[in-house]
């Protein structure tokens, strides 16, 4: 086993031992889609959502929230802790590069995100008959790009924040504008002008 796979194994164990994190990644989006899915009539096109089907919209929302929570809250906080506790420094005096640990950690989290997205799709399909994404290839690509972009933002926060606590705080500061620009609070197409151009690439 090389350094990367050893770290990946250890990081997977650590991820599963962190019950709250595992619950947030898998439990939150499923609870969200089930909760909204049970509202009577939510399976019909919704006027307020420009005639999008309610459960479909919430499924997309669940996916977006998983990615954003992991990338903008999880990554800065945990990488910030690894920095603050000298875990990366300690690896700096072993034959293994600290970068290997960082990449393994992000890979484990990305795998968790992908798994969580798959669970959401399965739940809404089985429970509420929401069709699977029409263009699976494009959907997968957009999920991967989404993971890359939020993880990159998260790593940036972890790199510039002086402590784990401030990294977590900064992550939250980014989380809400990100949700806003993704059209959580009002759909992008009802926006005008410059706001719309800033928002549409992020739309859920």
């Amino acid at each position, binding site marked *: 086993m090389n350094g990367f796979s050893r770290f990946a194994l250890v990081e997977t164990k*650590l991820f599963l031992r962190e019950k709250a994190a595992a619950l947030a990644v898998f439990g939150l989006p499923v609870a969200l889609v089930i909760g909204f899915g049970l509202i009577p009539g939510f399976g019909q096109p919704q006027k307020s959502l420009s005639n999008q089907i309610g459960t479909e919209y919430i499924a997309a929302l669940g996916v977006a929230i998983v990615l954003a929570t992991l990338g903008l809250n999880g990554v800065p906080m945990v990488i910030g802790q690894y920095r603050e506790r000298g*875990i990366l420094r300690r690896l700096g005096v072993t*034959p293994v590069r600290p970068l290997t640990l960082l990449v393994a950690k992000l890979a484990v989290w990305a795998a968790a995100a992908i798994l969580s997205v798959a669970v959401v799709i399965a739940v809404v399909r089985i429970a509420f008959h929401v069709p699977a994404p029409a263009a699976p290839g494009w959907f997968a690509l957009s999920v991967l790009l989404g993971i890359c972009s939020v993880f990159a933002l998260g790593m940036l926060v972890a790199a510039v924040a002086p402590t784990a606590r401030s990294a977590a705080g900064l992550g939250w500061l980014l989380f809400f504008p990100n949700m806003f620009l993704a059209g959580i609070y009002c759909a992008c197409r009802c926006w005008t002008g410059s706001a719309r151009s800033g928002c549409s690439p992020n739309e859920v």
Partner: protein
Amino acid sequence: MAAVIEVAGLTKRYGGQAVVDGISFHVDQGEIFGILGPNGAGKTTAVECMEGLRRRDSGQVRILGLDPRTDGHRLHQRIGVQLQETQLPEKLKVREALALYASFYPDPADWRELLERWGLAGQSGAPFGKLSGGQKQRLFIALALVGNPEMVFLDELTAGLDPGARRATWELISQVRDGGVTVVLVSHFMDEVEELCDRVAILERGRIAALDTPAGLVDRAGGEYRVRFRPMAPLAEQSLTALPGVTSVTRHGTQVDVTGTGDFASAVTAELARRQVVVADLRIEGRSLDSAYVALTGRTMDT
């Protein structure tokens, strides 16, 4: 013996201020070399330049013949390091940490045996976050040794250990050295350095203020011994003042303090015996590295 560490003119500056200011020394194979000094003297910075964690600004450093600045990877396969104030992930178990670190090295030690030797066998399955301060410290020493290193850097070896555990740790470090491993010990505990180290460099404001064996430092600082006792019969002070080596005799109530140099203490006890004066509470206070440190640097450790 071959030098394991050669340092010449090592300098590290932060914002124009030299934190380590041109220090030079060498450490021989199988030595326990101490770096002693108050907080902020540059001990940790100097050692981190040797470990390859920090880049020196100037000077030469060779560890096992390798330059940590350019040959870090090869160097790290052959050295072990215990850093000051590091942690592990809270939920990582003790045996997982040791197995993981063992896997980094080409020829690791048996980590189960290390677990036994460092008294952590009972904590094998415990997560790092649940360990006591002393157990964490012992785990970090074990992690420094798990790669079967030719030399180890130990920074604040016994921080957080109780007196019993400190003694036990000193004993184990002596055994590590007896196995041929060279040890660099960064410390601000006099007793630890005096007990363990073959040679000591006293660092002050980034420079080496003195470098010698602990006994050599004590001798160099000079100073006097003191003999204290309570005579159970009348005693004329003049009879002691005249003895060779005695520099002063003072009386505090019933207690007599005699200071002097050389072998004056046996002259004093012989004189007391000759005069058939029985004494109580006899105490001889030797010179220690502690007082030598104050004499050599002009200040106490805590300032």
